[in-house]
């Protein structure tokens, strides 16, 4: 599935919920399935400190495919990371580097990616892309 197709799949999933609380119930569930960063990688240099929540991100590239794992102290943040990673995992570095994650806006969660929110997510997206750029051959 391409990044675009995966994004559309998520948009379709979220279309099922018209109540905010149900939507967040789902995000919280997703947060529990996040590919968790291995303890050895949960280091200071992989920590993205936000004012509201903190994020750890680890990136790898094998056979021209990006692999991300992450964690956060806040579960809603974790759920949103899970969505982001689901879209870009196993994709080529070039595709990840140019990904714009527009689906987040479509499902009404853009507030979590606002720079003023200071939850570490904006910096995390930047780090994902930087890691992908480094891996571009």
């Amino acid at each position, binding site marked *: 599935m391409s990044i675009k197709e995966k994004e559309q799949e998520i948009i379709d999933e979220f279309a099922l919920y018209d109540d*905010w*609380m149900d939507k*967040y*119930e789902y995000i*919280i569930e997703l947060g*529990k399935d996040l590919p968790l960063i291995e303890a050895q990688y949960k280091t200071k240099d992989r920590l993205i400190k936000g*004012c*509201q*929540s*903190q994020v750890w991100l680890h990136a790898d590239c094998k056979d021209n495919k990006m692999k991300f794992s992450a964690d956060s*102290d*806040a*579960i*809603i*943040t974790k759920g949103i990371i899970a969505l982001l990673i689901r879209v870009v995992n196993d994709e080529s570095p070039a595709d990840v580097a140019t990904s714009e994650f527009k689906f987040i806006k479509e499902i009404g969660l853009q507030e*979590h990616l606002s720079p003023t929110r*200071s*939850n570490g997510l904006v910096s995390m997206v930047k780090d994902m892309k930087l890691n992908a750029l480094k891996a571009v051959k």
Partner: protein
Amino acid sequence: MDIQSIRSQFPILAEKIHGKPLVYFDNGATTQKPLSVIQRISDYYSKENANIHRGVHTLSQEATTAYENARNTIQKHIGAKENYEVLFTKGTTDGINLVAFSFGELLNAGDEIIISAMEHHSNIVPWQMLCERKGCKLRVIPMNEKGELELDQFDKLLSDKTKLVAVTHISNSLGTVNDVKYIIEKAHAIGAKVLIDGAQSIQHIQVNVQELDCDFYVFSGHKLFGPTGIGVLYGKEEILNQMPPYQGGGDMIKEVTFEKTTYNVLPHKFEAGTPNIAGGIGLGAAFEFLNSLDMKEVLKHEQELLDYATAELTKIEGIKFYGEAKEKTSVISFLIDGLHPYDVGTLLDKMGIAVRTGHHCTQPIMDQFCIPGTIRASFALYNTKEEIDVFIAALNRIIPMLKD
């Protein structure tokens, strides 16, 4: 006090957020504005707008009168001796920076400034910058587990090196009401000056700067039902006159030549440039709104809200309060075992409830308690017990969602 009639003066309280009636519990960050303030600002721009202190034309004089009347209203409310001791600033932060610069110019290397462990970053960083600039030393009054200042430790910090004590009247994170009267007396006894950060005070309690005998008192308009971008620095005339100006420009000068400029008298000496005229006039209207209330009744109502919310929150399993001082106003900071404030705040918002989450610009407090932040509900006079019920019901819905 008729809360419904007060509520009806605040149009925003009828708004819906995500389809739910707004429950606004973020008054520590900023309060909502009554119609009288909104209308006053609109009237100013519709009928009176002109630059002040300069024009001979009618509008300029009317605008000047309105702006200066606002100063007089504030002077009376806070009990300042002279109207020119009330300086308009951008807000609390601006007022503290003004004192840190201008009063700071009178300090020398080795002089000491005392602050407390519960200060907002605005009452920490300007002093650190001053210490770097002048080689002064910053000392900190410690705080106990309940969020009360250890005043016996304060006594020990005082010495002939102490030149200024800068403490908050009421803590924005913990709600603690400090015994500023004691602090001022002790500081004066050794010849130090005192600045009180009143950002969280005037909206809750009647403040009289002459009774307190503080040397400086700073606050923001937007936290007491006025507009943003305007605030007040009260200073004693004698000290303000000793201090050099903060910023140079129009209005603050008497005579300018390329060789030598002489400065204007108070308050203009510290009000360079065209001021926030609409803000000042709007703030005057906010003080008139406060004057229309019985502040004792306000405090009583807010105390009831605080007691009720505390009692209801106590029933929630795993709750821990931060700030349990004996003297406390309408701020409740708490955490629920295993729940992150960001998650709680996000879900409360979806239910129409506005609270603050995070460190509230008081990182040293969070460090002392070894927590990343708290959930803070802060009340104002227009809040009700029914709103607290909505808040508690929302929490009881959220908690099982977030717990594994």
